[in-house]
């Protein structure tokens, strides 16, 4: 989804775009591949990198319950950015990798950031066996022979004051957003290839300054690649991934636009993995409560309505101060869902200055 593209570009902006500017970078897709609406999915190869595309990521969030009775959330993200469509070996840094990790507790939020160049083994992704890593942060297949390579994963990360070590077990199939995974982003036609694994059961250990906590919960993995960013006037976004107690899932986002109304789209996912792409405007996201975070005001509680499904939800942050304090800072943290359906999920918000 395009919000993540913009996030990546903005995060790397001080290092990459510079004099050319953000908008310019988007128009210069020459030499890179463009997403194909007729893409034939090929797994496990598509779990691996697509270096001929400009940007790509492996983005995992998990909403967790600790054995201490408290709620937690975990984020693990690996971004790939191509400086050129080549990927030589050695120091020649044509592929840049960036990791973001977050750990949210009810009363604290921890974040970390890593950079690496491709070609020397400090960071990368292999499809078979599946492994995505930067430094000692690692998301790897557990090597089961049956099913999809992403069905069983281990996940580790470590920051200045936290670490985690989790096992993930998928209970449903991969799902594809938009038209068979071809996700159109704007009227101008920007698009990406976008699929998810939203059915993870998670268990493992969090290490915090106060000690270790055993956790269980629900995870969601996004895979996306593209070569085009957002349009100039899109100022930020609000993205949710919700996992309902009855097994259904909802992914939705609202792209705020300086030159007009917000653009809201998403995917409804049944418990068996069948999907329905939402038409623009079906999903209505309304801010309820604003919170002062890092010197700005952010909506940390939302009313979410979905026409035609009689869905009226109240989505609230577990910790309203879930501020990812990295190079390009943003809000990302676990939420609880109440209303016509119950559940958990993740919320991401950018562009609030």
């Amino acid at each position, binding site marked *: 989804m395009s919000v993540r593209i913009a996030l990546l570009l903005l995060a790397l902006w001080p290092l990459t775009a*510079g004099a050319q500017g953000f908008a310019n970078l988007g128009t210069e897709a020459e030499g890179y591949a463009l997403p194909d609406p007729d893409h034939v999915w090929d797994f496990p190869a598509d779990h691996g990198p697509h270096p001929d595309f400009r940007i790509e990521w492996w983005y995992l969030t998990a909403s967790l319950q600790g054995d201490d009775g408290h709620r937690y959330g975990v984020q693990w993200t690996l971004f790939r950015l191509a400086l050129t469509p080549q990927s030589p070996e050695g120091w020649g*840094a044509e592929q*840049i990798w960036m990791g973001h990790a977050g750990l949210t507790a009810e009363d604290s939020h921890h974040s970390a950031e890593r950079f690496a160049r491709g070609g020397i083994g*400090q960071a990368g992704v292999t499809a078979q066996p599946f492994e995505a890593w930067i430094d*000692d942060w690692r998301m790897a297949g557990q090597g089961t022979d049956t099913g999809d390579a992403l069905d069983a994963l281990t996940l580790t990360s*470590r920051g200045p004051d936290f670490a985690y070590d989790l096992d993930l077990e998928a209970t449903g199939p991969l799902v594809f957003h938009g038209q068979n995974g071809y996700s159109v982003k704007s009227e101008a036609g920007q698009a990406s290839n976008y699929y998810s694994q939203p059915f993870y059961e998670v268990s493992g250990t969090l290490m915090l300054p106060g000690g270790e906590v055993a956790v269980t919960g629900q995870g969601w993995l996004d895979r996306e690649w593209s070569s085009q960013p957002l349009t100039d006037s899109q100022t930020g976004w609000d993205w949710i991934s919700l996992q309902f107690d009855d097994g259904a899932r909802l992914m939705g986002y609202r792209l705020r636009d300086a030159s007009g109304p917000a653009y809201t789209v998403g995917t409804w996912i049944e418990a068996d993995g069948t999907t329905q792409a939402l038409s623009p405007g079906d999903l209505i996201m309304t801010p309820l409560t604003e919170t002062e975070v890092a010197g700005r005001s952010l909506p940390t509680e939302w009313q979410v309505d979905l026409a035609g499904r009689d869905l009226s939800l109240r989505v609230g942050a577990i910790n309203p101060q879930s501020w990812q304090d990295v190079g390009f800072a943003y809000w990302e943290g676990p939420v609880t869902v109440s209303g016509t359906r119950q559940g958990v999920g993740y919320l991401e918000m950018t562009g609030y200055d």
Partner: protein
Amino acid sequence: MTRAGLSALLSHWRQRPGQLAALVLGLMLATALWSGVQAINAEARNAYDRAEGVLTQGRFARLARADGGPIPVADYVALRRAGYLVSPVIETDYAGLTLLGLDPLTAPADALPGGIATETTGFADFSAQLYVSPESADQGLPGAQVLPSLPPGTAVADISTVARLTGVFDPTYLLVLPDQPAFLPPIETATDLELRLPDDSTDPGEMTAAFHMNLTAFGLLSFGVGLFIAHAAIGLAVEQRRPVIRTLRALGLPLRRLIALLALELLGIAAIAGILGVLLGYVIAAALLPGVAGTLRGLYGAPIGAELGFDPAWALAALAIALIGAGVAGASALWRVAHMPILAPALPRAWAMDHGRILRRQALAAAALFALAALFAAVPGGLVLAFASLAALLLGAALALPPVLSWLLSRARPLARGAFAEWVLADTRQQVSGLSLALMALLLALAANVGVSTMVGSFRETFVQWLDQRLGAELYLRASNPQELDRLTAILGGRTDAILPVASVDRPLLGQPGSILAQADDPTYRERWPLLDAAPDAFDALHAGTGVFVNEQIALREGLSLGDPVPLAPGLTLPVVAIYADYGNPEGQAVMGLGPFRAAFPDVPPLGLAIRADPDAVPGLIEDLRAAGLPDGAISDQANMRRISLMVFERTFRVTDALSALTLGVAGLAILLSFLTLARMRLPQLAPVWAIGQTRTRLAGTELGRSLALAALTFLLALPVGLALAWLLLNRVNTEAFGWRLPMILFPGDWLRLALLAALAAGLAATLPALRLARMAPARLLQVFVHER
């Protein structure tokens, strides 16, 4: 009204261009000396910042291979994948430059040279660039871009660029980021690489602080002396324009406007003088900088270029200093004008009225300052305290001068024979207050001169003696490996008196950066090593491996005395059996016997040779060694080393000498101006004596003699102050700043030279007014009676 008033005030200068020149000169010199010193300091500070910016000063801990070899990329990646935050650096020589390859993706944010993180446009651009220092801009490196924050002789690029340019792929060392992730075992346990902790003490900013403080102190002193001049010139101008000022007021120029005009005039003059001063300061700084740069390189290894940049901020600050200085110098004159009664006749100020009380106050303040100076000197507590003691001493001495002179003159009164002599003494005593500023300036300049020349002289004598002791062998060689060493030994075979192996290893000593030296058992060392303190049979203990020598620096810093244990290697701790002088070395050093050293450091082969030979045979030996392919840099002969060492030494103190001479010159000027001011105002005192029956020639001669006497008295008082200053410099400042103490050696010959100089300055300054007096038309003297109603 403003223009008319200003034209009347300014027309004064047209008639007295000399006075204007003196005022401008005084302010200009004050600004120039002060700002020149500031410029040098700023340039040096800039150089340190640049050096620090490129990691050469070891602000970060590093991992390196014990043998100094490159670190395989795989080892680096393995550390990263174990979770440790380390960043690779390739350091290599390229086109005569030290080329650093950095990885901005993993490097600590403040490890990149200033300018790259903020000025340039990001990683994509950085990875395509080669950055060089301005000094290397014209070396024609392809794609080189100038980065002013880089120190001379360095270039920086992305690690991929460096790898591409040089073919070196493996990092030379890894920077260890100060903050490592949570829950990891210590990095030392995760690698075979050697962890080198950041070296705080090699920070040149710290090491050179003393030197710069020294310069700043001189700059301030010169500034003060320059202000004395400006003060005198402004006072003179106001004094001479008294009648004009009264006429202006009588004709209807309001007082406030008048003061404003005088202030405006002063401001204009100060601005002009300030600009000239900034230019002159730049010239002085540019002239002195090569010496300073040499000093800093020689003493501390601090990299600093010899070319001075021009910084507008510095120029503006200097200009502001000029204006503030003019304000300070002119404040009292303006205050006098403001309180001058409009109708008061042009009576010269009544000298010495109420002067007793001022003198008593000065004496009390001086006594308090002296006590403070003694207290600061007695308490061991760092460089700042040492300098505070120095400042209190100088200020106290300046303040003590008028009361002491006055007291001496009053004590001398009974010695006077005859009315004329009595009058001369009484009159001289009165004059002290008018001359006190100039005499204080002279005292400070003389004391600084005595102090500095004593320090430099003591240092020089000690240093030369030490060089003779330390450079015992006629020739020193350094091989790059043991095989070469054997080859060299073979070449020399039989043509020398002795070949003494030399080994050394860089190792922290008692937690401080330092080195351990291995010394062969030979009379060369036994007879000449510059021991300051030694146990009996110290050399026997050294070679038996039961004792170690340490240099004075580490002994002073760590409070070591004979018998104290010093850990040298894991499992090896030896007692100190001797302490030796090691001038010019900022670091700690220990000496072990060659045998015990080899046992303790089997991996460190002796690669140096000290060769005893007939001095006449040395040139031949050198030729043969060169013919055998030994590079010039690996051969040092004693004579050459001695010459270079002395050259570095002389350069070290050239700046100090120059500033001290300039200060003396400025003080001389201050005296001249003071005498000129006084001469005019003294006519009413002299006219009656002349009228009663003294010739003008005799009066003029007396004036001259009196000036010389005052200068001589000032010199006599400056002498003990200067010696106290030298003592402080040698025993407090040097100890704190450099880590060595020096014996104080007196140079009475220098004093004589200085006394003559002082007499010359005062004599020249007094001659002009005296000549004028001797040739003065009697009518001028008579006018005194006409005008003084």
